[in-house]
């Protein structure tokens, strides 16, 4: 292994934090609708990360940039999305909370311990190389996440997401009674999820102390002949009263993980390559859960996964190339991306129409 590679790896873990790894979209869902300005420390940390990419390629790794559905495109009203992350669940079986927290795992066919996890909240600083080293929103409808990985074939392994405002008795997905050959398993865990609600919250007010000062009112021939002294005093910045605040509110929810045991989608990447790959996502209502094949504990059900609908995010490569990576603090990665190639997914599922981001597919087990 290249010695420089080892040194940079160690430095990366120490230097990189979440704020340095994402551009706009994940931050939108967590704190603010506006992108935070880049300060020098973030740029410097990104430059350190940037040095790593060409070394990784020379060391036999590959770089994959995976496209995903842009959260801003799916939920254009940012403020409403923040306040109502889960509000659509009861009406349409989907929500910004699900889209923002969905994690799609692509697993190395030869070594299941090697995988990448694609999601708005999965980054290198917490997940190692399973997480993205950087993510950003393109000019179009797509987000992009950048991974360094070992060469090989990577198969769609599982999809996980929260399902707010639901409990085990309500269940999840489309529940079917038949017991055909499954395509995998659905693990559903009863849990809680914090939703942010704007409430009128009492505040005792806030004040600050201003130190004593003296101001000269009349200068006469170089001397102050009249001044006014102001003693130390308090200034009230906010009066006591009720103010609107975002309050975390625990709400029952399910943690859902759909494990896929049959070939559905895969891509292959060789050592030294940098490629763009389409992403995959699902809507919860598109999964069929076999109720007759379940192992049930009091707060966990594991049932057969009978069928699954997927949508492919087919991003134009020009959209990716148009993003100014150098300006974001990644000049070397920007040069590499200028030669990026598109790597189509190998899909072994039946096409089922077209969605907002690309073709839809459906995979079902035996009847």
């Amino acid at each position, binding site marked *: 292994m290249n010695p420089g590679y080892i040194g940079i790896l160690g430095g990366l873990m120490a230097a990189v934090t979440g704020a340095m790894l994402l551009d706009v979209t994940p931050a939108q869902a967590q704190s603010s609708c506006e992108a935070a300005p880049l300060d020098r420390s973030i740029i410097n940390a990104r430059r350190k990360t940037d040095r790593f990419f060409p070394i990784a390629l020379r060391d036999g790794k590959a770089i994959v940039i995976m496209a995903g559905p842009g959260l801003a495109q799916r939920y254009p009203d940012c403020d409403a999305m923040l306040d109502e992350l889960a509000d659509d669940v009861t009406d349409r079986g989907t929500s910004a909370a699900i889209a923002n927290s969905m994690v799609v795992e692509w697993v190395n066919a030869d070594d299941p*311990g090697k995988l990448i996890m694609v999601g708005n909240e999965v980054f290198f600083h917490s997940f190692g190389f399973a997480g993205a080293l950087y993510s950003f929103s393109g000019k179009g409808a797509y987000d992009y996440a950048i991974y360094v990985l070992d060469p090989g074939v990577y198969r769609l392994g599982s999809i996980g997401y929260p399902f707010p405002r639901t409990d085990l008795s309500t269940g999840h997905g489309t529940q079917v009674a038949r017991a055909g050959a499954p395509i995998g398993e659905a693990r559903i865990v009863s849990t*809680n999820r914090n939703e942010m609600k704007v409430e009128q919250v009492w505040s005792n007010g806030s004040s600050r102390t201003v130190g004593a000062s003296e101001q000269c009112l009349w200068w006469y021939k170089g001397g102050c002949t009249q001044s006014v002294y102001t003693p130390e005093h308090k200034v009230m910045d906010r009066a006591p009263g009720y103010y609107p605040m975002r309050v975390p509110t625990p709400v029952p929810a399910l943690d859902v993980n759909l494990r896929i045991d049959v070939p559905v989608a895969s891509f292959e990447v060789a050592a030294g390559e940098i490629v763009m790959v389409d992403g995959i996502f699902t809507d919860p209502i598109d999964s069929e859960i076999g109720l007759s094949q379940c192992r049930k*504990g*009091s707060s966990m059900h594991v049932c057969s996964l009978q069928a699954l609908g997927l949508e492919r995010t087919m991003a134009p490569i020009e959209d990716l190339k148009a993003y100014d990576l150098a300006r974001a603090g990644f000049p070397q990665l920007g040069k590499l991306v200028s030669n990026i190639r598109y790597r189509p997914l190998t899909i072994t599922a039946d096409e089922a129409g077209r969605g907002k981001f690309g073709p839809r597919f459906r995979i079902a087990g035996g009847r």
Partner: protein
Amino acid sequence: MKHLQKCLAVFAVAIPLLAAGPTPGKSDLDRQLALLAGDDPSAPKAGAGKAEAAPKSGWIHPELKGANDVPCAMSYRDGINTIGYIGPSKGWDESYFFVTGPSIPRTSKTRSVRVRLATDGDADQTVRAFHYMMSSNKWAILFKLTDFPAALDAMEDVEDIAIVLMEPDDPQYQQAIFTGRWVGGHAAREKLRACLATTGQR
């Protein structure tokens, strides 16, 4: 894992020992956890010494043929998560069940927490566990076991588990902080039982 919960100890007394800095017991535990989670740079490589070559995923038994004072242990690598058992050895009579992975919240020091242990076939149990700092970027939930052989008896061959945090003051109260799964548990525990027999533990 039908009866694993019965084997879990109430171990508030043990917390000061674990939290009080490097003790011989803590060092042993740290090394075991690192080895089982695949993080120990000094771990024996394939063909070196008596240890097994670590498989890419699934069950590993890093110390099955180890020295007598090394605990018999095994862990299951489920993607980026690890679930494992650390047994007793000569001179070290503690045993643990543990889970680790990136979803385990950060903690700056080891602490005692209440957690709900959920499985795919049993009633939930709420017990105390250690929220344990393995390294500067890895944390584990560690359950002390009072009867290690009984815990092995209770293992299912295929089992899904979830750990739900039950500390009311924690921002992740009642949230699942770990979900994972193993397969082939029965074959794995037979190897571990054989290891325990060589150390005189059973």
